[in-house]
């Protein structure tokens, strides 16, 4: 426990100073994590762009904010939570599974099942109607005659 505390104390100031001393955007480790995070977040200003690719000023500010949070040692989940608390689930490109997002998550599968079921039902129905189409002996003779006729014509 004591050793852990000492270790923590040793780690603390260095990471704090590291955050202030240099430009965080130039730290490749932080930048990589920031981009990975921001690619899954929506920019609220230009809604079809991710936070990583948007040129909006707010996106720039938020990227800065994310870099600083990474430097402070916050986890990805904590950072995402921070943004969701301010801008709502709308910032997430993968919204959480909640009662009100069930339709969003499972609606397509439900539609697929309904469509597949309908197709299956229709195909079975068709097969049974085709089997029913048995010919009476007369009709069979006529069909045979017509087929022979056809053969003669081609010969």
């Amino acid at each position, binding site marked *: 426990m004591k050793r852990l505390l000492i270790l923590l104390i040793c780690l603390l100031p260095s990471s704090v100073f590291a955050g202030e001393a240099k430009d965080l955007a130039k730290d490749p480790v932080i930048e990589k994590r920031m981009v990975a995070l921001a690619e899954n977040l929506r920019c609220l*200003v230009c809604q079809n762009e991710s936070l990583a690719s948007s040129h909006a000023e707010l996106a720039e500010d938020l990227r800065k904010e994310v870099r600083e949070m990474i430097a402070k040692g916050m986890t990805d989940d904590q950072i995402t939570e921070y943004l969701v608390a*301010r801008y709502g689930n*709308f910032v997430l490109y993968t919204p959480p599974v909640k009662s009100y997002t069930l339709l969003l998550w499972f609606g397509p599968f439900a539609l697929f099942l309904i469509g597949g079921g309908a197709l299956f039902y229709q195909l079975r129905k068709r097969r049974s109607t085709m089997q029913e189409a048995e010919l009476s002996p007369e009709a069979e003779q006529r069909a045979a005659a017509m087929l022979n006729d056809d053969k003669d014509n081609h010969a």
Partner: protein
Amino acid sequence: MMRFIWPLVAFLILAAFLYKGLSLNPREVNSPLIDKPAPAFSLPQLHDPAKSFSAEEMKGKVWLLNVWASWCVSCREEHPVLVELSKQNIVPIYGLDYKDNRADGEGWLTRGGDPYTLSVSDMDGRVGIDYGVYGVPETYLIDKQGIIRYKEIGPVTTEKLRDVILPKVAELQAK
């Protein structure tokens, strides 16, 4: 006949969804801050940077926090409405000058009139981020306990004020 019913039903359901979609505004994202405490801040006042103002000071009052900026185009549309509202002395309006520089902000208030009891300047936009600001102007209605009760995204119009905001203000003031 039956075979045409189901595709028709499916079409009608789809059409209903699409029709509803036509009237939704994708720019209006419900704020998760509604019914949550207004984030605390302490910022320098626009006209007197030596003094600061914090949201804490407004405990016990119903007030509007309007996020504006001199560079904001829609604010031009909104500003006269706020000036008119401030003359009626119904509810105090506080301004948050968002990512603006002081001279521009002050110039804007001199030219267009100053509806604000006071404005604070949020130069780096940090407080804006805490409030989830993404499109100026935005207006927050905060109650006596410091809880955000309503957020208007985009310019406040006379109609919005009359039909939505002022009734809510009266309701909160009566509490």
